């Protein structure tokens, strides 16, 4: 059943790529949307078969691939990956729907989109380190192409930066996985945790650090975040949606699954430092976001800030904080996707994202009232207003981490307050005020404008995302029930290991 989640997008990509003749872009888009709907339905079927009471991997399937190398095709799903697979299914669909403007080389574009979706599914489902790495790298090249072919003016620089950073991240991760195999002497690359009995702490630390930096680039954490704002600024709207909503989650997923899951003891040793790192990342991202003029850059920096909460939660590693981490991953995925869609809508209508230029877009007749209203929902959700997904995620993260790391948690809460500052600036500048553009020549005064009305159909993805954000905010049990068993299991792991190490589980 899980293999289906890979086959649909990947075979679909091949199919689209081999589409004979010169198909119309709209046709290709419709085919891609159909495939992604099927993929989303398949993910929902997995959700039906999924038993939330089980903490470990379930629905496992696999065959031996290259047994001598330790590369085995093993898939499985648990409460950590289930929500992420769903988010991936939903956001890939949203991205395809939002790719209305793609006219050049539609076959390649949608094929790449499908490859990314399939590869991300594969990375979330892989139960073998090498298999994860393969999928992790597989998603990289299509995204690079999507930015460098369909991107903005400065796309070559941004795409290369993205490629180099992520490639370094991949090398570090592969190095750590291989190093683990060499130092422990076993080549099974399974997900079983390493204890200090098998491997001395001195060897665990460098491996963990390599993994941390590798995934820290992907998340991204300060100071490895510099590729992200550039990539977002140059990427088109659907690519930004995928990048922020899904691909960054690979980093945090890796953090939880591999850094914490493989080296629980070394992780616990590093945890205080990681919490400080998280707080620095949160504050830096939030402060840098305040100073941005480009709406998209602002949202991109907000990602740096908000993904820091996941590191904080992972460092604390209590049941509540880990559940909070899953919540934060899902809600950040939905909220940032929503924000990028809306910024994209503004860009499409006005041709600019500059906060010094945009004014009064909330105007009901000549502006973008629906986009503006949804933007208010999105920024409030991101700022952690109750009733929306951001609040319950942040509350769980802070509540779970406070006892372990009070100072880092309080600093992160300050970051949460700063989110309100920059997003309020965004709404106030771009959407409030009088709808007019300031011309380059200051003498001639502002010009009244009339923006083309957006179709309601075009806004459906944003409406759906906003709806999901509110549903999770008002009914958090919908998500909590899926993940709780898994996060509880992960939080208890160090305890179990310690018990096993001291000679008995009681």
């Amino acid at each position, binding site marked *: 059943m899980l293999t289906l989640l890979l086959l649909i997008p990947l075979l679909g990509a091949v199919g689209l790529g081999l589409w004979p003749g010169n198909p119309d872009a709209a046709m290709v888009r419709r085919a891609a949307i159909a495939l992604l709907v099927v993929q989303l339905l398949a993910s929902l079927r997995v959700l039906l078969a999924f038993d939330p009471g089980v903490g470990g991997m379930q629905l496992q399937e696999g065959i031996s691939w290259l047994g001598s190398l330790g590369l085995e095709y093993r898939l499985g799903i648990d409460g950590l990956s289930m929500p992420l697979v769903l988010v991936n299914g939903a956001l890939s669909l949203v991205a395809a729907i939002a790719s209305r403007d793609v006219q050049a080389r539609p076959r390649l574009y949608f094929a790449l989109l499908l490859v990314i979706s399939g590869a991300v599914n594969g990375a979330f489902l892989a139960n073998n380190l090498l298999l994860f790495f393969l999928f992790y790298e597989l998603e990289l090249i299509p995204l690079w192409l999507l930015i460098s072919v369909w991107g903005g003016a400065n796309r070559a620089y941004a795409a290369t930066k993205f490629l180099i950073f992520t490639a370094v991240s991949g090398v570090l991760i592969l190095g750590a996985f291989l190093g683990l195999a060499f130092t422990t002497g076993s080549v099974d690359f399974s997900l079983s945790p390493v204890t200090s009995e098998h491997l001395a702490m001195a060897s665990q630390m460098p491996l963990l650090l390599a993994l941390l930096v590798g995934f820290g680039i992907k998340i991204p954490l300060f100071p490895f975040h510099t590729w992200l704002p550039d990539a977002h600024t140059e990427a088109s709207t659907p690519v930004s949606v995928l990048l922020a909503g899904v691909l960054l989650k690979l980093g945090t997923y890796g953090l939880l699954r591999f850094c914490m899951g493989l080296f629980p003891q070394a992780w616990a040793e590093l945890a205080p430092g990681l919490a400080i790192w998280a707080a620095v990342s949160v504050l830096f991202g939030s402060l840098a976001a305040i100073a941005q003029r480009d709406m998209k850059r602002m949202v991109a920096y907000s990602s740096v800030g908000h993904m820091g909460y996941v590191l904080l939660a992972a460092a604390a590693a209590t049941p509540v904080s880990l559940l909070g981490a899953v919540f934060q991953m899902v809600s950040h995925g939905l909220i940032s996707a929503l924000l990028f869609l809306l910024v994209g809508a503004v860009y499409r209508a006005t041709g600019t994202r500059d906060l010094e230029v945009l004014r009064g877009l909330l105007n009901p007749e000549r502006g973008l009232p629906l986009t503006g209203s949804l933007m208010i929902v999105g920024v409030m959700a991101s700022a952690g207003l109750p009733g929306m997904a951001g609040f319950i995620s942040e509350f769980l993260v802070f509540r779970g981490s406070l006892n372990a790391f009070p100072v880092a948690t309080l600093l992160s809460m300050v970051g949460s307050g700063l989110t309100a500052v920059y997003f309020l600036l965004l709404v*106030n500048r771009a959407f409030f005020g009088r709808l007019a553009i300031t011309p380059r020549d200051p003498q001639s005064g502002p010009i009244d404008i009339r923006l083309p009305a957006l179709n309601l159909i075009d806004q459906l993805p944003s409406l759906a995302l906003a709806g999901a954000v509110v549903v999770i905010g008002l009914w958090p049990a919908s998500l909590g029930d899926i993940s709780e068993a898994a996060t509880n299991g992960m939080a208890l792991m160090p305890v179990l290991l310690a018990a096993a190490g001291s000679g008995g589980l009681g």
Partner: protein
Amino acid sequence: MPLVSALPLPLQTVWLIPLYGFSGMVLSLPWATGWIKRNGPRPAAYLNLLVTLLAVLHGSLVIREVMQLGPQHLSFPWFQADDLQLRIGFDLSLTNLAALELVTFMSLVCQVFGLGYLDKEWSLARFYGLVGFFEGAMSGVVLSSSLFMSYFLLEMLTLSTYLLVGFWYAQPLVVTAARDAFLTKRVGDVLLLMGVVALSAWAGSMEFNDLYAWAATANLPPLAANLLGLGLIAGPMGKCAQFPMHLWLDEAMEGPNPASILRNSVVVTCGAVVLLKVMPLLQAAPLATTVLLAVGAISAVGGALVAIAQVDLKRAFSYSTTSYLGLVFIAVALQQPGIALLLLFAHGLAKALLFMSVGSIIATTNCQDLTELGGLGGRMPATTVAYLVGGAGLVGLLPLGCFWCYGLIVESIRPAAPLMAAVFILTNLLTALNLTRVFRSVFLGSPTPKTRRAPEVNWLMATPMVSLSVIVLLLPWIMQRLDPVPGIGSFSLPVALVIAGSGAAGVVAGSQVHLDRFWSRSRQQAVRVVQDLLAFDFYTPAIYRATIVAFVAALANLASWFDRVVVNGLVNGIGRVSLISAEGLKLGVSGQMQTYVLTTLVAIVLLFSAMQWWFG
């Protein structure tokens, strides 16, 4: 606790009461978004009035049942994870229900008033939707039995205040007002969130009753207890527009007047109710109590002083709200919760009436500048009466609502805190002065071009105003019923005389103050300095801009600079170095086999010797 299903129906369904307001928001959507364009947006207003009426009726049914059955507690599970239990809980005590009735009734009255005031407003449906949201959040806050739920709804209040203040978002002053309202409250809310999270982590439960039990036995280190206390009072401080987070209420006067009525009467009351609920948790936090006292005293006197120097009709009274809530803070800090509630109640009704009167004046004259008003006394009789009744209900002079509150509080704190009693009396004097001064500018004197042809307001505005006047006049009787023991008149004659005397002194001073239409700023240098100081709110906005705003902006710019120059510069530098070295190496290609072999050999030797040195 009895089973929920054993309770009478109105109590079982009490969770509906906040939902009435929220459903009003949803019901307004078709008109607010413009899906239904025929016949204008009025139906949304009627639907909202209907659900608010339902809320009022349901609330009074609940009060009747609770009077028979005694206080009840209802709670429903909401979310649970590991040791974290979050529940939706309602505390149905008479105090909470009285506050609920105040909230829903005021919302109803304001919505009727708003039909008249916003007669020609094109986005009437949006306004009513927001008021519905506002009302829902407030009814939830006053009924809530858990700190988590109170926080949840207080934040929703912050959001709806932002949207209501920003209602006319095309005006530049409104934009900054909405921003300041949100950010100031948000500062308070984030501090409150820190307190909530800490309590949740330490005490486990979020129910107020469990928290009280925990606080009685918890042995926190003094630092933690004090920080916790400060966090818990920060939220109410922001909501009640207390110094130093008082700026937003004044700026919020840019919003539509019906919302100002609600904001100055019941929203601040909600903040104070939350303060009353967290008060028992502050036993171990003497610092928090001291801060409460100081903040209350500064806000009370400072607010009353600043109000005197305002030339804007609405702002003259919004600062007075800050001032009265300061008095409530003092009462709470001095462990007088009963009197604090009475004061909130009396102030809420009287201030709402004053703001209705102000709204009527603004609606007929389209002017809120005191220097351009005058001579309205005979032209708008209902409005004049409302102003007089509201003003009388607010100050301690005539035996209306606040007079009895003043008497009670001064009597009870006089022995322990004479200074604070003096603050009360001074505030009373200054408030009376301000009310008299404004009365003279607006209602007395000769008519001005803006008031010459002012008619009385239409019935939609007059009816709520007159009914509320009657209620304010009857308030002492209602208070007597609400709080029979020890009776609202249980204070000595000297205290009563001092209070009435301070009120009278204020009225006399207010009637003697020199008012000049053309020289609203005094020509005497010394007076002028003081006047400016007060008119500009002790220059607090400028001080904020120079300190905290500048600080955050500088940090943001520093972070951005660091990002561009250091982080990004480093990355680009590495890229450039690699490119340059590659360019350089390109020139070293000679095409001679020997050179390559030699280079390779040298490299291998170097590598091995390095490894030898490193590991050996």
